[in-house]
């Protein structure tokens, strides 16, 4: 299983993502934003951080970068593209995923553990996942997901809402919504579910010594689904 992590100037979760991918058996390569193409990969990851300083709007400049055309081509041909945090923002800016990520409801950066519920297992990311309520970690200022009514309807109809904020028992309510995201949305798929964008960072919770190790379920399962 080969993965590629794209590094934009200002990315800062690229190393963490590589550590996680390698830990679970991916053969990973780092790809610089100015490279003309992406080596053959089974999975492309857009990591978290502040690509191009997040100037203009989070992810907007990255969405126009040189490498992004290869990412779009890869995604359109059915390749798996995972965007975490800033990566999710970039995916919405490219139009590969619908909607936008606005500033958090309380206008503050939030760094803490959250629970998310896996809503759909008919896809390569979550098929056979051993745990449906995961304790992951968020660290963002713009994670407040929003989309139009029609887009939301279509997300619901196609089971594209991948993960939603909830409590440890899976209860979704505004109380457990850290940033004001529409319908507690923490992550969504593209229509054919090869693209996943989510705000929580599974790569930050991959061993017992860290604040959770539920990221293991995510990565372990992802690897299994490639076998």
């Amino acid at each position, binding site marked *: 299983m080969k993965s590629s992590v794209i590094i934009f100037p*200002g990315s*800062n979760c690229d190393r963490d993502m590589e550590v996680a991918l390698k830990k679970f058996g991916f053969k990973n390569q780092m790809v610089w934003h100015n490279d003309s193409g992406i080596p053959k990969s089974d999975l492309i990851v857009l990591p978290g951080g502040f690509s191009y300083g997040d100037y203009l709007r989070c992810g907007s400049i990255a969405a126009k970068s040189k490498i992004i055309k290869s990412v779009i081509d890869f995604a359109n041909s059915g390749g798996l593209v995972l965007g975490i945090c800033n990566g999710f923002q970039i995916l919405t800016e490219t139009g590969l995923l619908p909607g936008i990520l606005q500033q958090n409801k309380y206008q503050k*950066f939030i760094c803490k553990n959250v629970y998310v519920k896996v809503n759909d297992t008919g896809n390569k990311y979550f098929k056979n996942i051993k745990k449906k309520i995961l304790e992951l970690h968020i*660290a963002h200022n713009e994670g407040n997901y929003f989309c139009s009514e029609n887009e939301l309807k279509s997300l619901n109809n196609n089971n594209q809402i991948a993960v939603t904020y909830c409590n440890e028992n899976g209860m979704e309510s505004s109380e457990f919504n850290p940033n004001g995201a529409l319908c507690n949305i923490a992550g969504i798929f593209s229509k054919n579910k090869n693209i996943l964008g989510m705000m929580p*960072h599974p790569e930050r919770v991959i061993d017992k010594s860290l604040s959770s190790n539920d990221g293991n379920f995510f990565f372990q399962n992802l690897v299994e689904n490639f076998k």
Partner: protein
Amino acid sequence: METNEQIAIEHGLKKEEYSKICDLLKRNPNLTELGIFSAMWNEHCSYKSSKIHLKKLNSKGKKVIQGPGENAGVIDIEDDDAIVFKIESHNHPSFIEPYQGAATGVGGIMRDVFTMGARPIANLNSIHFGSPQHPKTKNLLRGVVKGIGGYGNCMGIPTVGGQTSFDESYNGNILVNAMTLGLVNKNKIFYSKAAGINKPVIYVGSKTGRDGIHGASMASAIFDDKIEEKKPTVQVGDPFTEKLLLEACLELMEGKSIISIQDMGAAGLTSSSIEMASKGNLGIKLNLNKVPCREEKMTPYEIMLSESQERMLIVLENGKENEAKKIFDKWNLDFAVIGKTTDSKKIELFFNNNKVAEIPINILAENAPVYDRKWKKTKLPQRIKFNKNDFKKLKISDVLKKILHLPNIASKEWIWQQYDHTVMGDTIQKPGSDSGVVRVHGTNKAVATSVDSSAIYCYSHPLTGGKQIVCENWRNLISCGSKPIAITNCLNFGNPEKEKNMGEFVECVEGINEASKYLDYPIVSGNVSFYNETKDKGIKPTPAIGGIGLLKDYKKMITMDLKNNKNLLLVIGKTEGHLDQSVFAINILNEKKGPPPEINLFNEKNNGETLLKLIGEGLINSAHDVSLGGIITAVSKMAIKGKKGFKLNNLKVLINKFHYYYGEDQGRYVIEIAPNNLTKVQKILKSNSVHYDDIGIVTENEILIDKEPVLNINDLIKFNKSWLEDYMDK
């Protein structure tokens, strides 16, 4: 332009200093030269009031690779790893413009660390604000927290610890101290000392603008009503550029082309170029037309004094320019050869083909003024005789609720949740603990770090206060099972020209030094911030100590949260019940007099080392040092973290229970142990002559104190967490 005494005074120089400059130069300096002198000779850059005292500091030790005098201190953490670390103040700019002031403080300290070749792995901060009722406090706090987060989060460096306090003495002068630690291979450390002549001097990073001109002089002055007018002297930060600069510098450092490197911090191009030349005993020649400028028509004066951020000066090996330029091009950063090293031992500046300044380096550096300022000793205040009748109407549990809700005791989660504390994936102990702990990436080791200050104790008796902070910092590192190695200090004081303030400085430093020596806890870097004074009102003396400890096996780390029901709670260290200057005395009894608790360095060392033994034997489930608010506050914080309750035994001591539970005697820890380990623990404590009290047990969620009404842990959590949230958001 010719200069005179008046212009010199406007530059913050004293009359005598100006005549000294004229004597040394044997002529009047021109304006650019005067600007350079003012930048180099101000308090912030020259340490003129503090130098003779700082020299005495204990900075040597087996683990010290680099002590004070470089961009940051460096210590050995075994295998080929070393930690580069330092703390620095950004007080004055943060009061004028809290967001940018705090942000650039964080940016500046990170540059000090990666200049030496280290990748930053953790940030901390020590921030102090005026009374919560003061009209400025809320906005300053909000701005500072956003600024610290804005910079550190974007850089992708976790902020793992810190300290926040409120005191009316900071109403007109807030304190913002930022600390960074970085990891480096000990054979690949970079220094600022230039070597060799005719070597190219390279400018990299952001362009130079007009921001921050005279920033260092502003930071060396007292404030008045017109301070808001100084806003243009505050630098503007761009963390994105700094992230690029970090990666580009580290990439260049993988090769062998750098002779020396220095970040442009306070006093910008002036101090960086002079420092490099001075350390190498060389001269330096710069063509200021080559400096990348952001704005048009910048004069030599402005270019030399700008404090624009995210810039570095590098002396390269000859012929390596293209190789280096390629890296900076890749990261889209400016790269310019702006001069060369010479053997003239002078700084020579050229602009439009004219020589615009020429000053012998030794005049600027070694001949900078040094003052042995007058200072006054602070007498140890008399002990207060507390009236036991005052306690009669109080309940331990009511007082506890009040104390947990006090601004200086309440949870600071509202603050640290705005800092990314988990990026880099190695944070194993988060803010809100005794220490922040980060793993040394890819190894079994971890580094613990904490920053501490105790302005109330230092104000009451500076000598004791100075010792106390070092000890408290040491204890915080011990509590998580790490062995303390070394410290950095940020010495925040009032006006050194006042004998009382200068005395506070001298005696705090003496106290810090004494404890540092006794505990073999050397001081390897630091910074002094004087003139924290507005309209004649100075701050309480607030030296901040940042410490580093090493855990050889991170899996043996201890946390402070209570773990299991029925486990035993022990207090290590003797409790005499010292209430003077305690949170209880000041806030509950409104008694502000008396001396701070005494420091017994022998007990401090013995108790701490014994606790490390217990941790090493695997006998400890949780541990926490006893500090503000005494034993019961310490136990409550452990309970809050672990979402557990506790039951206190009936006291078997002779002192009053308020003295026992709220006294702030030093050198103590609360530990949680399993009942079946008690005999082993007792044996180790006894054989090391460490006093201990068995104070109670862990419960599921109830808090039982004597026959007082039962409290629930959820109530305590609420009391502790709600103060800051309500203050900021309601």
